Each structure stands twice: as C-alpha cells, then as structure tokens.
C-alpha cells in the first residue's frame, strides 16, 4: 500500500482519510498509521500547495542559478550547500552532475532582489567559483501539473 499511498498523496495531499482508505481498499486506521509512520521516517516531509502566482496580482520572480564551487576537504559539497540553503529565499538546492555543481532555485519579489542576492550573498561566498543566473519567464508545467491548459473531456458522451 505504501507506494500507492505515496503516489496519491503526492498528487493530492488534501484527500480525505476515509476516501483514501476506500480507494486503497484498506481500513482508515491503517491509513492513519501508515501516514504517521511515513512522516516519522521523514519520507513525507511536508504538505505543500501548488500556486500559479502568475494568475494573481502578486509579483514573484523565480530563477535557476547554476553554481560552480570548490568542494571542501572532508566535507565535499555538503558544507557549501548548507550555507546556501540556509537563506530563506532559496527554494531548493541540488547537487548536479555535469558542467556545474549546484543548482539553486530562488524566489523573490523582483529581478533586483534576486540579482542582489546573487551578487551580494552567493558569489561572495569563499568556495563559490562562478554563478549563472537564469530567470524563469513562464512556467508551462510544474510538479507534474500542466499550468497552461485545462483538461477538457472531448470524448463522445455515450459509447458502447
């Protein structure tokens, strides 16, 4: 049940527990226990809401920043990654294989705020060799959800 449960709540964390039990074909108490276990094990780390900010009047700017760093002796990339992810404006930090080392995603109120963060905070860190900032112009799909188009049922209404 674990894999199926995770697949469902990853898509819809607001699903009613009773309904979850029904569609999984188990008792509600089992769902409650399994969710508690998943949270305790740190497998479920949060329940977030997907928001398409573009449809609001609130200004948000997001960027992807490629960061090249010098790994530190004995600590590899972890130490520098930690220094970066501690900034609250940083959304995610990934260690990446290939042409650069860390991919940092960032959300801010304006272009200026983000470039300020990159020039003042990020690139001044000792182990950071270089950064390349990419501003996101439009989100087509995020977290498996298509943002630009609504599902439309185009099937014939009744078919054998």
């Amino acid at each position, binding site marked *: 049940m674990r894999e199926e449960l995770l697949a469902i709540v990853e898509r819809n964390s607001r699903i009613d527990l009773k309904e979850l039990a029904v569609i999984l074909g188990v008792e509600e108490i089992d769902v409650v226990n399994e969710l508690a276990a998943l949270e305790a094990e740190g497998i479920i780390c949060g329940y977030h809401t997907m928001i398409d900010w573009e449809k609001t009047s609130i200004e948000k700017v997001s960027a992807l920043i490629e960061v090249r760093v010098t790994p530190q002796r004995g600590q590899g990339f972890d130490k520098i990654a930690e220094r970066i992810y501690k900034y609250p404006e940083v959304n995610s930090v990934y260690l990446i294989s290939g042409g650069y080392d860390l991919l940092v995603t960032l959300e801010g109120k304006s272009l200026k705020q983000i470039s300020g963060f990159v020039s003042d905070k990020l690139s001044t860190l000792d182990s950071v060799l270089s950064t390349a900032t990419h501003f996101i112009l439009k989100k087509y799909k995020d977290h498996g959800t298509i943002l630009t188009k609504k599902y439309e049922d185009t099937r014939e209404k*009744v078919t054998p």
Partner: protein
Amino acid sequence: MRNPLADKVVEIKPSGIRKFFDIVSEMKDAISLGVGEPDFDTPWHIRDEGIYSLEKGRTFYTSNSGLKELKEEICHYTKRKQGVTYDPDHEVLVTVGGSEAIDIGLRAMLNPGEEVLIPQPSYVSYEPCTVLAGGVPVIIELKGENEFRLTAQELEDAITDKTKVLILPFPNNPTGAIMERKDLEEIAEVIRRHDLFVISDEIYAELTYKEKHVSIVEIEGMQERTILINGFSKAFAMTGWRLGYACGPKEIVEQMTKIHQFAIMCAPTTSQYAAVEALRNGDDDVQEMRMAYNQRRRYLMNAFREMGLECFEPFGAFYVFPCIKEFGMTSEEFANRFLEEEKVAVVPGTAFGNCGEGYLRISYAYSLDNLKIAIGKLAAFVERLRTAK
C-alpha cells in the same frame, strides 16, 4: 424504383446505445458516466512515435496482415502475458480495432445456418456481426447470481448440433465480470467435448483487479480452437487509433486475412508504428492506469454499499453493473428519469441484451472528482425514489 436495401441489414436493430446517445447529446450540461473508452490520453511516448513515423514519411500501406515488427511484438507480448506462442508470420493479423477482428473472424468461420453462442449482457456487435456473416445468434443469458460468469451448465444447455462458435467476452463490457482459471477449465471441457470453436474477445485483458487475466488459450487443448482478440484501445488508451489484432490457428487466420485484404487492405500505418512502441515500452503506463481504475472501482463499490444499492463486485474492465430492480422500473425508465432529474447519463443494461434488464452500466473511465459529483447525484436520486415508495 425497387428496394435498394438488403433485408438482412434492414432487419438489424440499431444499437440501443445510439438512442440514448441522441438524448444525452441534446442535454448540454449533462454529466456522463456512459463512456466506453479510457479518460486517459494515449501516453505521450506512444503518440510521439506515431508523429515520428509521419515525419519520416511512413505514410504507405503496410503488408496486409500488418507490420512484421508489430506482429513480432504482439507474439512477444502474448508470450509474456499469457505464456502461449504464436507464429508472427502465419498466426497473427493486425486489424482495425478489435471490432474488425470480431467481424472477420465470424465471417471466416460461419456457413449459413450455423449457430454462434453469445453470452449476454455483452458488447453490442456480436449479434449483428453473426447475422451479417450468415450465422444464427443464440443468446446465453448470464445471471447476476453467478456474477455474470459463464457456467459449464449454461453453455451445455445452449449447444445444439448446429453450434459452431462460442464468443467469450471477458473481462466483460458492460458487467465488469471476469472468468478465472477454474471457470475457464470447466467450460473448456464442454467446448472440447462438443468440438466448438471460440472467439475470445479479450480487449480488456490488461484491466483486471484481482489476479492477472487468464486467457482461454492457456487452457489445455484450447489454443488450436480459439481466435484470441485483443487490441490497443483499452490497455494503452488508444481508442481513436483503431488498432487491434487476432491470433489464432493458421488456417483460420489465413482466411481472415483474405477478407481483411479485400475489405480493408491494412490497418492504419501510423497506428501500427505507435503500437510497436506501446508494446515495447508501455507496461508502466498500463500499470499506472490500472491502479487509477482500481481506486475508482473501490470508490464506487463503497458508494453503492453506503447507499444500499445492490452490486456484485466486478474485477475487470472499467464498468460496474449495479442492480436497480428494487425500484420497480425498467433500466431504460431509470436511466431516462435519472438523466432528466439529475442530468447524469448512465447506460441502461438492456443496451447490451435483454437480460441486462434491471441493471445499469456505470463507467469509471472518469476522474474521481467527476465520479464523486455524479455519485452524489445518484445517491440523492435513489433516496428520493425510496421515500416516494
């Protein structure tokens, strides 16, 4: 001017579902639970392969029986799923949907007056196709108390000295019934004893929610007397691509291929290239869709239990077949009133044979959110009927 029409065709009743379709399509805001095809789009990698084949200019006929590559993949797939071996060169025919395979299978096998056993409720085309092929349809009325499975006794009782072919439509549309290995072994004994042939329509084979689907061809002595029909519509959500296939003994498939060659030429080339991709890399998609269907199936069964609506638990396809006999209405009356009063379309069981009387086909090829709204309306409707009584 003389009558331009063939009596045989004129005498065929139009599909009962058509009538209902006309009513529903006039109601703009109706919610439908009447669809017999998946709600999922064809997985993108399969569509992409179709597009790619067009870009590469693969826009010509294939060989009559289908692309060699595809026939080989069909044989691998059938080996993998059912554990039986077919020869891609002589025992496989790629058709325009499973429907064409049913039609030409019957045409290849029937002489005038030979009888075809058709268990009902079942898909709408078996009876007219039998008639058009010159055969005589003999209906076996399946029963709710047997969970709409075909029993050896029911089969035995319907056999005459003219019986030639049994149509085996499992997993079943509209009931969702399946036949498990022991059920198949029991009827196989009767089939062998009476020297019958089987057209096994297994288009929903990938959509079972108990054990893995068992095909009649897995039962001893049955492969040599069975045409196994399957296709891409339900398993891979590819209804519009119109692609199916038949596997069977060389001597039958050869004759089917002849009809196909003259009537159709070959199945759509683009679809065939896409289908190769489906069989090679589509298992995960099927698994994901099966999981979603199963969740909806459980949701519906629970909803029926809560509203006290009688329904056997179906383990196949994407339909449930609840019983509405307690309301003292025909299936058609129920469906019409439900549509009028709640604007939800379900298909009366009688669209799939007279013995579907007292039942409704509800499709769960809809998102859970859609189902929830529709089922809420069904609960309200049922409640109202009960208080009125």
